[in-house]
Each structure stands twice: as C-alpha cells, then as structure tokens.
C-alpha cells in the first residue's frame, strides 16, 4: 500500500513538471518530424529533387536533342546546355552540382571508331547528388557500351566504315535536318546511294541487336529484407512510412533521459532529506528502491504509449500486426532501462554527478546503439559493441515490430535480453544499495 502511494506520488510529480514532459514527449515527436521531413516523409517532396545538370558540347542539334531527351527522360535531371566557362563557374561555386563536358569532336571521333572520353565536373561539396549524377551517367554509358560490344561481337567487320565510306556517310548526313538527308538520297548520286546502302545495313544490324536484347537469358529475382520483391534495377518502394524508422529510435533515446532523471531522483530526495524521512516510515530501503523501479518502469511505459499513440495519429506510425508485441516490448524496455539507470544512480554521489554521467552515457549509448544511425551503417567493431547496450536491443525490437511489421515471436531474443538486463541490473542495484547502507553514505 505504501509502495503504491510512493509510486503514485512520483508519477504525479513527474507529469506535473512541464519541462520534463516537453523533453519526454514533445522533443522526440518534433525531432521525428524533422527527420521525416528531411528524408521525404509526410507525403512531402522526397529527399532527392531534380538535379540541375549543365551540359557543354558543340554538337549538331539532332545530337543535342538526342542527349537532352535521354537525360531528361530519367526524370532526375534538369538539363541546361551552356558554355564551358559558365559551367565551370557554376560547379565551382556550388550553384549546380555537376556538368557534363562532351568534346567538340565527339561525333566525328566516335563514328570514326576512336576512343572518346566525356568528362563530368562535380561540385566538391556535393558527395551525394554529384555522386548520383555520376552513377546514372555511368549506367547510361553502360547501355551504349553493351550495345556496341554485342554489335561488334556479332558483326566484327561492319562497324567502322573505312575512311572513304565514312566521308560518304558524313557527306550524306551533313546538315541539321532529316529533310536535307532525304533530298540528297532523292537526288540519287552513286556516292549517296552507296552511303545509304551502308547506313541501311548498319541500321538493320542495329535492329537485329535490339531484338536480340529483348530475349532474357537470366531472370534475377531481387528480394530485400522486408520480403519485398524487386524487379531488376528497381529501387525499394518509397511508400514505406519513413517515420517507422525514426520514431522508435527517438522514443528510446528520450526514454533513457526519463529513466536517467528518475534514477537521479534518489539523489534529489537524499539531498532534500525526503529519503531520510521515508526511511523512518515502515518502508525498508529495498522497498523504496523497488518502488522507484516500478515507478520508472510504469513512467517509461506511459511515455512510450503516448509517443506511439501520437505517432500513429500524427505520422501514421505502424503499430505492428500483433496487439501484444509493442506493449510487451515497451514494458520490457522500460524495465531494463529503469534497472540500468538505478545502478548508475547508486554508483554516483550527487544529483549533478548523476545528471552529467547519465547524459554522457545516454549520448554514447544512443550513438553506438542505433538511435541516431542504424547499426548496419557502422564499422564491424561498433556493431559488436552495440550489442552490449540495452538501447540496441530496444531499438532493434521496436524496429522489427514497427518497420518490418513482425509479431511477438520475431522479437523473443530482444525481449529475453532486455528482461535479463532488467533482472540482473535490479539485483545489482539492490546489492549496491546494501553496500551503501552498510557504508552509511546513502543518507
């Protein structure tokens, strides 16, 4: 009865502190909102918008149109043909992320069978977007290279015309429009006819190669970890709710602050003399500690419940397929963190020391335990280190339920580890309490 009263008192006091409520509830929701907006959530503009790309090259207008169409069709580029000097200035000052420089003799060299190099200038401060431009251009060139390699493998002798034929074809194709070419063919000179025959052969072979490419030899089935099956070259669907990734991490991060603050209460009550007064009552110190642990656990459960409920309403958070999975995961997480921070509180001497050390521990654990960046992106040794933090198991469990839409059976390991932490650290806290009582430095 007395313990229940203590728990009720602690809960009322905690939730009447507006600044604690802001840190525990408002801040995680705000940060989740910022992260979601930054990476394309709330149905807003996706993280990647059209990338301005300058193209430099003195090409016939037909070739320019062809390149323009090919780049624009990807839907990723906003293409502007410009001068070399202007493109260089724009890339150097970061006004555009990349510029494609096509040599002036590109067409002549390419159709003469010579090696041709195009250059991509990238903004030095744009590792991400300029990198995307490079990848896409490499992929586009790959299609050209593949077609050429297949063609030459099939008809090794007819790809590069000799110099006389080349000049005949070049003369036939002079000018900027198909009408000019058509007129020359209609005029009917022998040279034009030969060139036209040659072009027809080349075009027939091109068609044959294109037809040959339509037959698929290998069907690559790509499946990601969520079980989503993707066609070759297809990216995972963007329709997945990005807040499912961010909110659990933020919720656990701020739950650690609450648990740390609740643990620090022991020092505040000791410094204000409340602890001494409570120990005069029939309550034993162990019961006081258990009361604090139950309060921290219930408080954490309440905090997580509100965060997930508001997350569902505001961000459309997925609460998983199993109605028990999220509550059980939240309860065990709260219990584990309550035990962990009680031990930390009993290892420190003052409220200020507890506040500073617990904040340092929280930031460090959040960093390596996957609250800021998924552990998958970390070096191996950090991934191993992460497994020694309680928040790693909490984050992983919540992600499994919320992001991967799994049930209770998928998080049994997480629950077992967190329950183990809760029991082991609570036992350690009781032990530390007795040691401090014996030393007489608890009061």
């Amino acid at each position, binding site marked *: 009865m007395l313990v229940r009263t203590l728990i009720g008192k602690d809960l009322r006091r905690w939730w009447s502190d*507006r*600044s604690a409520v*802001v*840190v525990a509830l408002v*801040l995680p929701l*705000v*940060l989740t909102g*910022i992260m979601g*907006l*930054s*990476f394309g959530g709330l149905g807003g503009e996706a*993280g990647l*918008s059209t990338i301005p790309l300058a193209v430099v090259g003195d090409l016939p207008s037909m070739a320019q149109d062809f390149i323009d169409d090919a780049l624009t069709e990807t839907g990723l580029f906003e293409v502007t043909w410009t001068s070399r000097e202007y493109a260089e200035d724009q890339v*150097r*000052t970061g006004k555009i992320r990349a510029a494609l420089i096509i040599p002036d003799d590109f067409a002549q060299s*390419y159709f003469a069978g010579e090696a041709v*190099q*195009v250059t991509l*200038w*990238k903004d*030095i*401060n744009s*590792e*991400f977007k*300029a990198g995307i431009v*490079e990848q896409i251009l490499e992929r586009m*060139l790959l299609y*050209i*290279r*593949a077609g050429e*390699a*297949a063609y*030459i*493998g*099939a*008809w090794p002798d007819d790809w590069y015309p000799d110099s006389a034929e080349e000049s005949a074809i070049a003369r036939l194709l002079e000018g900027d429009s198909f009408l000019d070419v058509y007129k020359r063919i209609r005029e009917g000179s022998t040279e034009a006819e030969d060139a036209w025959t040659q072009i027809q052969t080349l075009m027939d072979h091109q068609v044959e190669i294109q*037809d*040959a*490419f339509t*037959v*698929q*030899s*290998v069907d*690559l*089935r*790509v*499946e*990601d*970890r969520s079980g989503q099956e993707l066609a*070759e*070259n297809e990216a995972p669907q963007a329709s997945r709710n990005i807040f499912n990734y961010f909110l659990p991490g933020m919720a656990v991060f701020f739950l650690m602050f609450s648990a740390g603050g609740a643990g620090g209460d022991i020092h505040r009550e000791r410094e204000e003399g409340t602890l001494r007064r409570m120990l005069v009552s029939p309550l034993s110190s162990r019961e006081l500690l258990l009361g604090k642990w139950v309060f921290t656990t219930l408080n954490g459960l309440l905090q997580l419940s509100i965060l997930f409920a508001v997350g569902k309403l505001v961000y459309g958070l997925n609460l998983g397929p199993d109605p028990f999975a999220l509550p059980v995961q939240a309860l065990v997480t709260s219990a584990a963190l309550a035990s962990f921070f009680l031990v930390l509180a009993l290892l420190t001497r003052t409220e200020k*020391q507890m506040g*500073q050390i617990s904040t340092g521990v929280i*930031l460090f654990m959040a*960093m390596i335990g996957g609250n800021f960046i*998924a552990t998958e*992106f970390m*070096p191996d*040794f*950090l991934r191993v280190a992460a497994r020694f933090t309680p928040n790693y198991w909490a984050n992983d469990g919540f992600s499994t339920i919320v992001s991967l839409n799994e049930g209770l059976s998928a998080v049994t390991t997480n629950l077992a580890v967190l329950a183990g932490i809760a029991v082991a650290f609570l036992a350690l806290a009781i032990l530390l309490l007795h040691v401090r009582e014996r030393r007489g430095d608890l009061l």
Partner: protein
Amino acid sequence: MRLNVLIALIDVHIRKVLADKSNLFWLFGMPMMFSILMGMMFGSFDGGSGPPEVRVYDADRSEASRDLIAQLDGGEAYAVAVSDTVGSEEMARTLVNDGRRTATLYIPAGLADSLSIGGTARLFFFHDADRFSAQSARTDMEMAIFRLEAERAGRRAAAIDFDQARFDSLWSEPRLTLESEFLGRREQVELKLDKGAQHTGPAYALMFVMMFMLMSVRDVVSERRNGTLTRLRLGAASPGLLAGGMLLGPWVMGLVQMTVLLVLNAVVMGIDYGDSLASLVLLMLLFTGVATSLALVLATFCRTPGQADGVGMTASLTMAPLGGLWWPLEVVPSFMQKIGLVLPTGQGITIFHDMIGRGYGVVENGANFLGLGIWLVVLLGIATLRFRRLID
C-alpha cells in the same frame, strides 16, 4: 574601473566552468568522441575489420556460374564467399533476414543448361537494402548479368560466328568512357567532402559549442533566482555592465572551446579548414556570439532551472539537425535546405564546407557571414534589453 568589473565577471565565469572537472568532458571529450565515431560511420576511418560478406550458394557448379560469380568484385565494399554447400533459396533468404549476411546469391542448378538452350535461367539475390555493401553487391550482380545478356544478344544476332575476343576487349576497355573530377580547392590533394570527418568534425564542434551554451541557461536562471545578480547589481554594477559580463564570459569560454575542438579535429582527423584564417576567426567569433546571445535571451524567458534545461535542450537538439549538423543539408529537400540556411547552425556549417571544399574567404562567404551577423545583432539587442529590464 568599469572595465575591471567586466574582466572580473568574465574571469569568474571561466573559473567557475573550469573548476568543475566534469565540464571539461562536456566541453572537449564528448564532442571529440562524437566527431570521431560519427566520422567512422560516415566513412572516414576504417573500422579495422574486413568488409561485410556476401555469401554465394552455387548449386549449378558450372563454368557459367563461376564466370558470373567471378564478376562480383566487392573491393572495399564487400567480400564474396562461395559456400562449400549447394545451399538453398531458403537458406540464402534466412541468412539475410537474420542479419547474418549483408546479401546472399543463390544460383539454382540448371543455369548452364538453360543458357545453352537459349532459355531463361532464374537467380535469387537477397539483400538488406539499407546497407551500402548490399547495394554495391546488387549493382555488381546486375552488371554481371547485363554483360551476360549483352553477350547472349550478340551471339543470337550473329549471322556466322560471334567474335568473343572483340566482345571481351570492348567490354573491358570500352571506347566511350566517363572521367569525373571534383572542381574545388586543391583537387589534387583530395580535400573534397568525401571524408566523413570533414563534415562531422566542424559540425559537432558547432553543435557542442551551442549545446554547452544553451545548457548553461540553467546557471543564469539559478543565479537570478538565488539573488546573485541582484547582489551584483547592488555592488554598483550597472545593468549594462552585468549584461556584458554575462555575455562576454560564456563568449570567451565558447571561443576557447571551439578553438580547442578545431585544433583537436585538425590534429586527430587531419581536417584542413581552408586558406583563410580570417574566415575561420570571424566564423568562430560570430557563431559563439550568436550562441551566447541566444542562451542569454532564453535565460531571460525561463523561470526555473528545470524549464531552462527543457528549453535549452529543445533549442539545441532542433537547431542542430535543421541546420545540417547531423547530416549534410544537400541530402534534404529544398524547402528544408532553405529553413536550414536561415538558421545560424546552417550558416555556420555552410561556411565551414565552403572554406574546406572551395577555399572560400570572407568575401566569398559574405552572405552567410551577413546572416550570422544579423542573428548576432538581433539576439544581442534582445538579450541586452531583456536582461536590463529583468534586473533593473
């Protein structure tokens, strides 16, 4: 006399901060830990272990399957391990789903037979799409299949014999190539922002300077509540002088903190801040000034130390990601970039990026310096007015 009071106030603040040894950890230890660990995560340092493994189950065991596997060249991104067992589609899927492998490839029996009769063979590739190594492996796998498809297409189209040598030669040494280069400061010494620490080092220096200032808002509120400021006022210090002391003390401390952090970043992670010392000094002065003024403004609005903690933490933890201190602004949508560039955090990190990458000086960084200057003037004005009104 008045100058002596001001110096005394600054001196007291610095002594008070340094007297608490745990503050040293928050001033220098924690920011460096963040910079180094986040730098690792963004790819600055080698974690010391090998690349993630892509497991291949080859049930076909033919020359065709071996050729395909040989084209998976992970380099530093991943390592290929061909299993001794033939495995199964389910085994390959489970390894990835359990997080034990970044990606797996299952080649069922019959690949070579299918290719020889012109049929379509099916391969299974499982991957953790959130991992770079998995995406690299997927790209390489698609490339290998693309090569195979090109070769098969050439063979199908060939009227007589397919010239494998010409095909191989053109595939490995294509005529049409793309050469890419970064334009910026000293391209030859690779100072582009591809090293994670070149972002995380300055970003966390800015974040922790601001955070330390904003978390010390509670001290000002406590001093106001316990009457220290009133006693100082009675000790003949004018409100303006007191406001100056409350501003300059943390400002000097912030400058010391930022200087030490930037030097440590340069020494530990080899960060080069550009060619303009004037830009660096101006940035430090303006940013620490803005953070100090903001802290004092917030202190004048908070009534209790607890409230100050909440407000300080909320302000620092929202301004940091919005301004691009947690991730570069270029990865966020344009409207978020615009918000970020209005904030002092966004202006500060952009100046750093432009100093490091482009070699910009004061003039070229003018717009962002002006932004920081406006913040400083506005916040200083509000802080002074509010503070004077509060203690007068």
